[in-house]
């Protein structure tokens, strides 16, 4: 395959934004935690967008894939902490998290992606809640108490490395994952799969008659999106917090945040999830300071206004404005 570099120009503003965020976090005292939170929102927004933005399907159980990643890392560390593999254990945990998220998405997708729109959304809520009760009720993976693996982590990596992993490197990893997700997004958009997904998002029946195996392409997008969620769960949740607690990792609230970020920024655009994540993350942070407890009450009407006034999201609007200007090749 020929790799045409111009096709990847829209990555420039994305990576510039990440670089600026990273530098602000590293150089300005006290900013790292906030930057890390924003990077987390950017990463899940970007990962979620690969599915919601490109297929138009809403997965209300998306957080389950983050949960799989978190459990994967937890299980990897608890199982291998005495092997002396050092930092290699982290990669085993990451791999385990991604594989678990991918397998769950394959299982859910193979069944639920045959359903359309709202039915798919409802089925996925069921999967998330069902899986949580299964973990708690069947007492697997620590049941409702979850897994606390700080001790195992220090045994595996040493106290100093553990501290660094959880306070710095977990967040750096989130930046790397967000950058990878952006690359995969544009790679899909510019490839045959992107055209197939656009076609099926706009008109699934017409797409089928045009020769597109819609179920196959939906599942590819779903698994890709879920695998990134698995990575994020493994790094941003497991490694950072050093424990897994089922009510936290299956909390539907995170799925809602993903939806808000993607719709606000512009579903199916590359920059949208970042713009959405920054606006959402910063205003949530700020609202928590000036009006604690009222964040959602304030957010709900804002979201309604945005969905009604700019259904394509902020970047959807910007993209349309940029058409025919010199900015066109950088914004998608």
């Amino acid at each position, binding site marked *: 395959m020929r790799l045409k570099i111009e096709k990847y120009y829209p990555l420039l503003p994305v990576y510039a934004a990440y670089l600026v965020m990273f530098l602000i976090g590293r150089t300005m005292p006290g900013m790292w935690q906030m930057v890390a939170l924003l990077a987390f929102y950017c990463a899940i927004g970007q990962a979620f967008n690969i599915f919601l933005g490109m297929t138009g399907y809403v997965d209300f159980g998306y957080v389950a894939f983050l949960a799989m990643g978190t459990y994967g890392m937890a299980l990897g560390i608890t199982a291998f902490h005495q092997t002396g593999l050092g930092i290699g254990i982290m990669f085993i945990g990451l791999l385990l998290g991604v594989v678990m998220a991918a397998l769950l998405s394959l299982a859910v997708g193979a069944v639920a992606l045959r359903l359309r729109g709202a039915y798919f959304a409802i089925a996925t809520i069921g999967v998330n809640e069902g899986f949580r009760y299964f973990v708690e009720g069947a007492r697997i993976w620590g049941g409702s108490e979850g897994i606390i693996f700080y001790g195992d982590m220090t045994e595996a990596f040493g106290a100093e490395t553990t501290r660094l992993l959880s306070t710095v490197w977990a967040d750096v990893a989130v930046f790397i994952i967000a950058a990878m997700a952006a690359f995969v997004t544009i790679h899909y958009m*510019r490839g*045959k799969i992107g055209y197939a997904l*656009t076609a099926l998002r706009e008109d699934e029946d017409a797409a089928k008659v*045009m*020769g597109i195996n819609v179920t196959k392409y939906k599942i590819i997008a779903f698994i890709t999106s879920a695998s990134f969620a698995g990575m994020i769960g493994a790094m941003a949740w497991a490694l950072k917090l050093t424990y897994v607690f089922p009510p936290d990792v299956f909390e539907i609230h995170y799925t809602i945040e993903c939806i808000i970020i993607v719709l606000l920024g512009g579903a199916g655009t590359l920059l949208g999830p970042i713009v959405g994540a920054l606006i959402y993350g910063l205003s949530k942070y700020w609202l928590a300071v000036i009006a604690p407890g009222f964040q959602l009450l304030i957010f709900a009407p804002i979201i309604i206004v945005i969905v009604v006034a700019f259904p394509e999201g902020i970047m959807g609007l910007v993209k349309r404005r940029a058409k025919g200007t010199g900015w066109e090749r950088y914004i998608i």
Partner: protein
Amino acid sequence: MKLENITKKFGGLVAVDKVSLEIEAGELIGIVGPNGSGKTTLYNVISGVYTPEEGRVILEGKDITRLPPYRRAPMGIGRTFQIPRPFSSASVRENVAVGIMFGTLSGKVGVDESLEMADHYIELVGLQAYRDKASGRLTPTEKKLMEIARALAMKPKLLLMDEAMAGMHPRDIDDVVRFLKETAQEENIAIVSMVEHIMRAVAGFAQRVMVMYQGAKLVDAPTAEALGDLRVIDVYLGRPSGG
């Protein structure tokens, strides 16, 4: 392409009733029939949206009755819709490129090549000026032309057109008919065009006409003969009372 005794029912309603039809390569056929006569259902059976209860669909000797639509398109069945179904957010060029990528050339051409090839089909239907416009923003007639370009871009062996000329200006209809005839001949595409009442399009286009009525085949004959058939006139105008 052969249809053998196709029957498709929806509950108690027999939408298509034992219809057989043979289509030769490069043939131009018109399917005519009043609203509800089973034309669209027959199309859906050919393109794979519905599986018939009885009968077989055979393409170049292969039984494709149970193949899903996405497998049939690469085998050479292209289609346009009564109400145009553009991939709205995508540009005209991208829409046409989808036809190339997933039609009979599926797997043989890449994305860039498809986009370049799309220009040829866009020129054929005269939409050059709208090449980069989002297809959802075209006028209904432009959407119909875009769909024709997209379907031709699939390089089909059989092209099914559903009321492609409804709502067009008579002069445009003549243009489209002429252009379709030329293209069909050049690329050896069999075209089946289905119409409810635009006889102008059928008379100037089809070599043979099948008339459907209440799900069944009423007449299958050369165009002039079919359209002059008394039974056909009956179906459209009704029998004079007391006659």
